[in-house]
């Protein structure tokens, strides 16, 4: 806390704060809880659409998907805890986001984990990957929420500061939607779930709102390990069932999870949002150990706790339901009309707050007085300062942009050079190769919704609730959701505004490849130190680029999270905005066309290619040439492409479909070949024809999708593309056991598959030797 912030607190209280009050403000006014550096910018996002039921600022964003159903989604970061203790850090990240979803009344049905790590050539980075993946696996699988997608990306900028973002989606009947509001004077705040311990003290302030100093010999931030919480997925599973049962029975007025800031944050926020006050009695909080100070009880971030607001009349029914699910339930607060947030120790029994018997007032009618440990205006805790931090374009931005890799690469790989080793080398990069080592450790099939899972362009989950009664009309179509997360940090480093737009375009394109129309976006904005003006410039530009793209695509931003201080030893990470997009498929009655080739199919590419290599996997990932401008982000072209692709896929007019992104067209084609066990022969046609062959192969121009089309439908597809104003070119046909691009490469399918499959396992084994 700064001196200015302390003065502000003294001003608003008219006195010095008590120790407890100071600790609570310190947590609630931390960057992590208050968004004090970013709040100024977040209003720029478009947040409205007719189908948005709940926008940013609540536990989760909620959209209407028809049929009386709504979908809740949220994304969050758990970066610093995971850097310090990867297994528990990642596990509790999963637990936290799940609580946000069911606190809205939604049943969590899907998780996705966008992950960023440093290169796997150090034991420490390999340890972080193993730990984070095992944490997600053990918590997510056990709590019973399938992990259906995500990303794993490696870059040196994340070596000391990995990113662990977690996305969760839930489904609810619209009638069960509930907001975290402590309405109604005399209503009771019931603390549900785990007892309160000394774990996670200062998680929000010590860990999440400061960078790491110079790496110590035992790893960055090892001294902060006591601030990491410890997760218990079994407790959380019981909490999910108990809370949803409470809401189904109409027993809760509002529900709020306990996350950053613990009981201080949850209790004060629910009351402030309802315009009410709240009294809290510390003596009612079940604890793990004796001797905890009031401060420790109020700001502990012990996991698996929820706060339910219930009426006194319903309390006995609430307690009975909690007993059935074997979770603790304790009345810790009472809603007042004072507007004050007050904390006592031992007052409730004397005052007759249930379940204590009604107290007999003294002769003058008053209740016994108790020392008040905290007495502050309720809304002031959540009403932290807003900073307008200095903004400056980095001094080296011009030279970075000027260092376009094309000239160097053209010299190394002139026309006629064999691009085969380059293709195999790209396939063997952990950023591009098979990621099934990760997602095979995640339950991705629970709930029988997963029609397309991890490894696909986007996950597709059928909405079982929209299906007719099974058995009556087998095969009847219902609705489905498409989900993806995307983020391209290198593009954002080179040009944050364009890079952010490219992430939105890619996510929407992935969703379109399943036949869905994009409905909503949530973002997790991972940045360096906001006290660096260059970081604030990146942030501002990213917010603008993302806002422009969302407006053009008609995509409301319904929630988000900002994670600053991702730095180590003074070095900031690349700006890494990650977006999660959900799309709706109105009618799903068969599997999605795969990203795979079958012999005889014609290969068509939609969208134009230019020699855009800035930030590409080929230039930066394989050859270390990080510079130039990222590919251009033509938003109107994106809209046309997405609509066309969604229609073609929805009608099953194509046999195969794959988004073209990391590694460019050659990699997209190779992935489809591996997926179908079938080679191809193609040539540079259309916009590809005039380019340097290697640039045509590996350019990462946006707005491109590869289609595999049955011979008889090619003319129809080309006609549809022309009518939609989408460039289309026939590149060749699928067949044989070789990957052939005339004038560029000719490699065997077996070699390509080996390079792709072994990429991640061999890097994790410590032997990073890219092929070629």
């Amino acid at each position, binding site marked *: 806390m700064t001196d200015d912030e302390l003065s502000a607190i003294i001003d608003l209280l008219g006195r010095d704060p008590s120790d407890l009050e100071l600790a609570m403000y310190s947590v609630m006014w931390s960057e992590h809880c208050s968004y004090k550096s970013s709040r100024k910018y977040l209003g720029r996002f478009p947040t409205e659409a007719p189908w948005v039921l709940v926008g940013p600022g609540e536990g989760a964003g909620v959209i209407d998907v028809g049929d009386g159903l709504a979908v809740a989604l949220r994304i969050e970061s758990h970066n610093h805890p995971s850097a310090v203790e990867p297994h528990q850090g990642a596990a509790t990240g999963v637990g936290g986001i799940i609580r946000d979803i069911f606190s809205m009344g939604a049943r969590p049905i899907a998780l996705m984990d966008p992950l960023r790590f440093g290169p796997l050539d150090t034991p420490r980075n390999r340890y972080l990957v193993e730990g984070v993946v095992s944490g997600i696996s053990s918590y997510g699988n*056990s709590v019973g929420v399938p992990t259906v997608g995500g990303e794993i990306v490696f870059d040196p900028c994340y070596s000391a500061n990995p990113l662990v973002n977690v996305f969760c989606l839930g489904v609810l009947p619209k009638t069960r939607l509930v907001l975290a509001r402590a309405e109604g004077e005399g209503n009771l705040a019931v603390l549900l779930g785990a007892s309160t311990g000394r774990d996670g003290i200062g998680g929000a302030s010590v860990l999440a709102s400061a960078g790491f100093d110079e790496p110590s010999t035992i790893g960055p931030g090892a001294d902060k390990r006591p601030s990491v919480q410890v997760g218990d997925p079994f407790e959380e*599973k019981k909490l999910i069932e108990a809370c949803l049962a409470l809401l189904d029975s109409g027993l809760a007025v509002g529900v709020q999870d306990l996350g950053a800031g613990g009981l201080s944050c949850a209790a004060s926020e629910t009351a402030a949002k309802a315009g009410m006050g709240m009294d809290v009695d510390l003596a009612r909080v079940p604890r793990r150990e004796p001797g905890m100070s009031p401060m420790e009880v109020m700001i502990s971030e012990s996991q698996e706790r929820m706060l339910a607001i219930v009426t006194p009349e319903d309390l006995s029914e609430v307690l009975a339901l909690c007993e059935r699910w074997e979770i603790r339930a304790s009345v810790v607060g009472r809603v007042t009309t004072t507007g004050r947030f007050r904390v006592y120790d031992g007052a409730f029994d004397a005052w007759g707050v249930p379940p204590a018997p009604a107290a007999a007032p003294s002769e003058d009618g008053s209740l016994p007085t108790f020392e008040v440990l905290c007495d502050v205006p309720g809304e002031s805790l959540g009403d932290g300062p807003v900073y307008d931090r200095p903004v400056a374009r980095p001094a080296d931005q011009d030279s970075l942009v000027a260092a376009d890799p094309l000239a160097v690469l053209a010299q190394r790989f002139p026309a006629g050079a064999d691009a085969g080793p380059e293709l195999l080398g790209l396939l063997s990069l952990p950023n591009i190769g098979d990621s099934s080592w990760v997602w095979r450790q995640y339950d991705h*099939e629970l709930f029988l919704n997963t029609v397309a899972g991890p490894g696909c362009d986007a996950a597709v989950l059928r909405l079982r609730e929209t299906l007719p009664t099974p058995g009556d009309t087998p095969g009847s179509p219902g609705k489905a959701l498409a989900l993806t997360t995307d983020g391209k940090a290198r593009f954002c480093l080179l040009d944050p505004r364009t890079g952010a737009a490219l992430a939105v375009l890619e996510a929407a394109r992935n969703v379109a490849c399943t036949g869905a129309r994009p409905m909503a976006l949530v973002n997790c904005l991972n940045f360096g130190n906001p006290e660096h003006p260059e970081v604030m410039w990146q942030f501002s530009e990213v917010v603008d680029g993302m806002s422009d793209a969302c407006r053009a695509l008609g995509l409301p931003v319904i929630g988000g999270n900002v994670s600053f201080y991702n730095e180590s030893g003074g070095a900031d990470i690349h700006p890494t905005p990650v977006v999660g997009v959900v799309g709706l498929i109105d009618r799903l009655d068969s599997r999605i066309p795969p990203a795979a080739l079958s012999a005889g199919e014609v290969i068509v590419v939609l969208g134009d290619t230019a020699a855009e290599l800035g930030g590409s996997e080929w230039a930066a990932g394989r050859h270390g040439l990080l510079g130039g401008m990222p590919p251009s982000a033509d938003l109107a072209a994106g809209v046309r492409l997405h609509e066309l692709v969604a229609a073609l896929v929805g009608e099953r007019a194509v046999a195969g479909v794959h988004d073209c992104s990391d590694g460019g067209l050659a990699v997209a084609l190779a992935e489809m070949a591996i997926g179908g066990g079938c080679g191809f022969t193609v040539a540079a046609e259309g916009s590809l024809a005039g380019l340097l062959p290697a640039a045509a192969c590996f350019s990462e121009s946006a707005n491109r999708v590869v289609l595999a089309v049955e011979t008889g439908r090619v003319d129809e597809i080309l006609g549809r593309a022309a009518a939609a104003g989408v460039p289309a070119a026939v590149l060749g046909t699928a067949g044989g056991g070789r990957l052939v691009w005339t004038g560029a490469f000719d490699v065997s399918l077996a070699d390509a598959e080996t390079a792709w499959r072994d990429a991640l396992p061999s890097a994790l084994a410590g032997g990073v030797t890219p092929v070629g």
Partner: protein
Amino acid sequence: MSTRVGVVQFPGTNCEQDVAWAVKVLGGESEMLWHGDATVGTADAVVIAGGFAHGDYLRTGAIARFSPVMDAVAEFARAGGPVVGICNGFQVLCEAGLLAGALQKNAGLKFRCETVELRVETTATVLTRTAKTGQILRIPINHFEGNFVCDEATLKGLQENEQIVLRYVDNPNGSLDDIAGICNEGRNVVGLMPHPERASEAILGSDDGAVLLRSLL
């Protein structure tokens, strides 16, 4: 009248609704059996669904075996009633002594969620009576502790009595003798690690699991 399948739910069970859904898709009915109630209700068959009963604390299935419902399940099984344990349910049946052996951590020490190939080894059980011996089924697994172990004499007994119901074609977890599922001597209690309910509709990628679940109905 269709068959009524009782699906056991412990705190921490998570596949109970999936089993109920698959049963319904295949034309049966289901009811939930709460772990704290010592009854199998009106069920004609009992499925102990997958998940993490009581958090799998102490050891998989170790606490679940003490839940009151297990007394009723054991009695139902003794009377010849069909009982199937899927994944965590298999682990619970082993802990409860209704099936032989135990399930330890996978060789490779990783959780594995993927579709595997299984070979039907006997059709003389409540779960395989509508399958064919030697039939290959594609069904997902989803477990950390699926590595079946037992002593030599028990294995010999399982082999000689044809109590090995399903074997992995390509062993994913180090299971003894590639065992994916076994039955008791009465052949009315079956435990298997793979999840047939996850392969009960073609849109999910395989409907081979319906071959097994239909045997129950």
